[in-house]
């Protein structure tokens, strides 16, 4: 581009093509408008999944252990939790901080659509942990602890921790999230009579072991 004589020398490098610099992203935007699969035929669900993904990760595969992985979670369990957040019957600290607000305006139809979406995603593969921890955790998971009335988790949650119906998938879940829920159940911070009875007699070390094992499934 020829140097224009009416501009001082300092201007020579100072004329980026502003028009193109703004036009190019706009062109990309317009080109992109019709690409990509919607997450649901229901636009409300589609938009809501986008919001959920900011914490729970793209496709429900959360990175941060504060937020549970939802990919491949049981449909009926998701429905029950979202309703519990909405009516505040689930009141553990993170539920209060994050989920009460998120669920407050959800309709039953949207809840059902969210559960359809997340239950159909491919679950995250388990993460291996310390072998001794996993071995000890496996014993508790498959056999329970008879003399302290701790049943085998597999009895309800399944051999692979896949869950069924309104009993949640545990396999592949963040270890620290599992541990946190067991602590919440034991203390009744998260109200659930059955899980309270199942977890109240676990020591912190045993919680750590079980979480390591299910996180590897």
């Amino acid at each position, binding site marked *: 581009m020829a140097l*224009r004589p*009416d*501009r*001082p020398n*300092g*201007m020579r490098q*100072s*004329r*980026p093509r*502003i*028009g193109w*610099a*703004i036009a190019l*992203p*706009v062109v*990309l*935007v317009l080109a*992109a*408008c019709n*690409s*990509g*699969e919607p997450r649901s035929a229901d636009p409300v669900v589609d938009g809501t999944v*986008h*919001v959920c*993904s*900011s*914490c729970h990760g*793209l496709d429900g595969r959360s*990175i*941060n*252990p*504060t937020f549970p992985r939802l990919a491949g979670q049981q449909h009926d369990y998701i429905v029950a939790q979202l309703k519990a957040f909405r009516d505040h019957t689930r009141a553990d*600290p*993170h539920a*209060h*901080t*994050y989920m*009460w*607000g*998120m*669920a*407050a*305006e959800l309709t039953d139809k949207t809840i059902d659509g969210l559960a359809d979406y997340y239950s159909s995603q491919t679950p995250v593969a388990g993460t291996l942990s310390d072998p001794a921890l996993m071995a000890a955790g496996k014993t508790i998971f498959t056999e329970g602890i008879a003399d302290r009335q701790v049943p085998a988790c597999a009895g309800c949650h399944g051999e692979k921790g896949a869950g069924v119906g309104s009993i949640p998938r545990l396999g592949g879940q963040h270890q620290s999230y599992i541990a946190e829920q067991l602590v919440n159940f034991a203390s009744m911070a998260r109200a659930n009579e059955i899980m309270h009875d199942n977890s109240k007699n676990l020591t912190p070390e045993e919680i750590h072991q079980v979480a390591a094992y299910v996180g590897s499934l």
Partner: protein
Amino acid sequence: MNHCVRIGAKLRHAFAIVGAVTAALLVGIASADALPSYARQTGQQCAACHNGFPELTPYGRLFKLNGYTFGGGQSDLPALAVMLQGVPSFTRTEGSQAGGAAPHYGPNNNFGALQSGSIFYGGAISSDLGIGAFAQATYDNVGRSFAWDNTDIRWAKSTTLGGETVFGVSLNNNPSLTDLWNSTPAWRFPFINSALAPAQQPTATMIESTYAQQVLGLNAYAMWNRLVYAEIGGYKTLSQGTDNALNGSTSTDAFQGVAPYWRLALQPQWGRSSFEIGTFGMAASIYPGRVYGFGTDHKTDIGFDAQYQFLTDQHSASLQASWITENQSLDASQAINSTNSNNHLRSLNIKTSYYYEQTYGATLGYFRIDGSGDPVLYGPGTSLNSANNSPNTTGWIMEADYIPFNHGGPDIWPWLNMKIGLQYIIYTKYAGAATNYDGNGRNASDNNTLFLFDWIAF
């Protein structure tokens, strides 16, 4: 026709369209049901989006990226919020400020009932259309003036281009205001300074809010797969009349044409960690003091920044760092005022914070500005009043904060948030020297400042 004027005309036209559309949308505001206005909009506690305050968590960054439109709350209140800073405050400097720290205030140990008050529109303008805003207007109770403040009105949309891609457009009035991280100038630490103490950064590069609220910019941004962020924008200075009306100021600079702004960042995240590394900058041709006929100055700022956050319920740690280098070609200033023909200025800022339960926080920061000496810009008689004609200023900032309502306010008003802070600034160098920087015996340490403040938002 001159290439610059053609671009300028196109952008003026674009600004006019955006301005009209924005005004039309603001008139027909949809109720934001479902700032504290952001908490009301999402139904979430402040700590969900903020690490301490106002630093953003990864979720807070996504809220901003997506146009401030995420909903979920049940409040029918409009998306308005009020912030009061220094309500009250106490400022003590090691050496008194002869003549008073500010009009109506004494030379030291100043108690202030209110430093500033702001009103915000913060939240969705139309969730359906993906338009939201952060818009602020501030009454400065020390300078006794009312002016518009940081404003960012944006439209955002999410799609899939080989990975989630969020893109958007922002109309805003401060370069780096649109950024998501707290390592670029508009949103970096310290988040509050005493108005009754010597300036903590007595001179600054252009991109460090020098032209905040004196410009209007249109930016386009995109974030791919929550990993790569890119943004470009163009800023124009307001006309003299508009500047006077919105800012109450008179002799400001004017840009020739449009000043470009750019930003590129990478944000890998893993477990509870979020890391960012990036670059940013702007370039402008400037009529200093709106004096025409002597050509223009030209300034180019190039910055590099990084941020790291490790966030858990109980313990949160973060670190931000940025380094900005500015090249100034001062053809016009030299012709008008006999400054140097060419100056450099560099600005380094680093800080690290720790928060316990998002309630008790401690921050340590280091700042250093250094550059070419210039008698006309920094020498005796200027605002820096440097006997060495030097802008060089270096120091440390320590702050302890108590944020009692980060997990929800009192029952009577759950969205109230408050920060009670104690800030101490130590200067190891000020305006070019550690001792006798002004030729009248004032040392850098005389400017050491203790600032106790309360800051509330509701």
